[in-house]
């Protein structure tokens, strides 16, 4: 008598097919063992938007009666395994389906497991993930997060490796043999099955103790009751904004304190203020009004508002003045302009390291790589 729930947290559109492959395979494999299951995407996430964190679920039970409690819901209420297919979501997720930032490990049951595809070390990932009162386990699949598009799927075996690892870390769910059988039924290649087997053999877990992790408080929003809401479906506009950081000079638009959407970002712009010509293009073209105008007429990308679309990088006419860098490199949303103002040499050094790294590694989505799939080369292969 048991019910096991798995969630896949993924980036909308880019990883939709990946998530679907994972949750469906779980239900198929469970079926091989005479169990019954359901697979579903969280309704509020769709229609999916590029990169916005979304979820799909697989829930498996021994009997139809046991499964029933998990039907007609949007989310599993807690999960045995959380699968995070883009490590930049470790910092928390704000989706299309709810208000506020949800820690990546929020639904993971005590002593459950969080599987993540990442090139980062466990310590770096745990630093990003919110602290909790109950212990859980972290299982890392060393790989570059797999991104593709709405109509195409990059079959880089990420799904197979995740499923292999899943069988290892959650042996009560399904056996590896059943999973391999389910893969075969779906027409997956022998090579893919061997990737699952390898991942199974290599799968490890590191316990994450209470107190480990980020101490940030996720932002939240209390929904009003029917007696306190304004009538007539009216939404008041946010004010226009004013001077930079509340001063008289520059300009900073007012922003919603409860809808920030920055967890959509898997890359962020890093700005070279020394070469900026103040041409205004980033400020004009940014679809999210991210750029604050500083008192000295520069443009500071506000990381509480940036979705990481890379339009600014594309429109900037100055070589390497704006460079999109993997979000995994950062641990805060602090102002780059303020850091540059305080210590220009230090900023240059910090920036140069990041820009050089960005040139070596590639994140394949967003405006940056629209319509193309950059070669990921050796990074995509297993160590």
């Amino acid at each position: 008598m048991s019910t096991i729930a798995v969630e896949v947290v993924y980036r909308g559109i880019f990883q939709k097919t990946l998530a679907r492959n994972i949750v469906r395979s779980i239900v198929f494999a469970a079926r091989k063992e005479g169990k019954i299951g359901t697979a579903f995407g969280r309704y509020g996430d769709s229609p999916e938007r590029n990169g916005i964190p979304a979820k799909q679920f697989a829930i498996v039970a021994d009997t139809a009666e046991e499964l029933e409690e998990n039907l007609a819901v949007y989310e599993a209420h807690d999960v045995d395994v959380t699968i995070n297919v883009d490590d930049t979501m470790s910092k928390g997720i704000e989706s299309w389906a709810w208000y506020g930032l949800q820690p990546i490990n929020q639904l993971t049951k005590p002593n459950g497991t969080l599987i993540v595809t990442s090139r980062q070390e466990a310590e770096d990932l745990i630093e990003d993930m919110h602290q909790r009162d109950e212990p859980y386990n972290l299982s890392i699949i060393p790989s570059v997060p797999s991104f593709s598009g709405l109509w195409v799927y990059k079959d880089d075996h990420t799904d197979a490796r995740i499923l292999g690892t899943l069988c290892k870390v959650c042996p009560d769910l399904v056996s590896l043999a059943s999973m391999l059988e389910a893969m075969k039924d779906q027409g997956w290649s022998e090579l893919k099955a061997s990737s699952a087997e390898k991942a199974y053999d290599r799968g490890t877990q590191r316990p994450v103790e209470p107190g480990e992790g980020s101490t940030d408080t996720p932002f939240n929003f209390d929904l009003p009751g029917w007696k306190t809401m304004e009538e007539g479906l009216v939404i008041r506009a946010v004010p226009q904004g004013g001077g930079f950081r509340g001063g008289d000079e520059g300009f900073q638009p007012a922003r919603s304190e409860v809808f920030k959407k920055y967890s959509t970002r898997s890359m962020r712009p890093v700005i070279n203020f020394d070469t900026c010509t103040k041409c205004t293009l980033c400020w004009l073209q940014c679809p999210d009004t991210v750029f604050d105008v500083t008192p000295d007429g520069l443009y500071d990308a506000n990381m509480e508002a940036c979705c990481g679309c890379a339009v600014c990088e594309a429109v900037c006419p100055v070589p390497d003045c704006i460079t999109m860098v993997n979000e995994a490199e950062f641990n805060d949303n602090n102002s780059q302009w303020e850091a540059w103002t305080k210590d220009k040499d230090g900023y240059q050094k910090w920036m140069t390291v990041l820009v050089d790294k960005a040139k070596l590694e590639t994140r394949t989505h967003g405006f940056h790589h629209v319509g193309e799939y950059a070669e990921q080369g050796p990074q995509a292969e297993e160590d």
Partner: protein
Amino acid sequence: MATTQPKLYESEKEELISGSEAIAIACALADVDVITAYPIRPYDTVMQYVSKLKADGAFDCDFIVAESEHSQFEIVKHASAVGARTFCGSSGVGWFYAFEAIAVTAGLRLPVVAMVGNRALDDPGAFGVEHNDAMAVRDLGWMLYWAATAQEALDTALLAWRVAEDPRVFLPFAISCDGSFLTHSQAIVNVPASDKVDQFLPSYDRGRLQLHPDNPITIAPQVNEDWLMEIRRQSDDAMRRTQGVIKEIHDEFKEVFGRGDPSPFIEEYMTEDADIVLVGMGTLAMPVRVAVRRLREQGKKVGFLRIKFFRPFATEEIQQALSKCKAIGVIDRDYSYGSPSYGGVLFNELRAAMYPMPQRPHMLNFIAGLGGREVLVRDVNHVVDMVQKAIDTGKIEEETTWIAVRE
């Protein structure tokens, strides 16, 4: 309009599909001739899957994406008149946009089968389930069914064409599927072999009513007051006949496919000796059945009655199922502003049905799950507590209570 179709399923097969996908597969199994579409969530999951089946070469049909819901329903209406088996569907205000066509389809006795992916009516724009959209056809001569599972959606669709196209009926049939919970959730579904479906579902024969050059007729005339009463009475009689036809065809379905509930109209769950019977429709069944099982474990005599056919309303069966208990809690996933007791549509229908009974149980109404809000087991327990209170005190303080609404 029989064409040679590739056999979709040589033998029975398990699929992991949503309720919408189940209905799309039913379209293929039923060899539907004309399917029209216009996208709106959550119904659009059906048209997506029909497109896929067609693109994959799994079946052939005239698949017409119209420029609006109104045209979408007009096209199937006309296609049905010339003898084509038809399917279409919509959701929320999209369904409302087609309403002129929806009304005349029933008036002309055309057996169109439609899927309504239940969705809250705008504004505000919301995708979640509310039953008010489909409910709006309740007075028009459409049969109206609420499915709870993807399996039931597939089975009901096959039944729908058979019933609607029966010459004793010739009325349109709408299958309601709760947005998200049924339209977007994948479950294991037993898809029958094509041969069995062929055995159960003969091709559509409109006979002397078929609009065809070889059978010169005019349909949809303009009339005065000297005609309409008789026309209405005729449709009323057809709707009265549906109950017998549905029962007969449902029995045949069970024989051919080897599955099906005892009654096509209602599902009775632990109602036999129940003091309290909860009533609801669609996927509400899931949390309610779980709650009922747990309350039974605690020795509480609670049962659940799921209304499957809202039209025709199986008055006698429902009266029988409800007359034995002490109190009834009706959970509406709909609302009727300004109605008796400011209650839901289902509640007021049931209360009307129970009025002639010699012994009338207490009846309480609960508005829950609007706009797709999850109805949880604890919400159902809350409902049961309030119904129990009415039994204990012999008094009903509030006839209508909103469940899990923020004050």
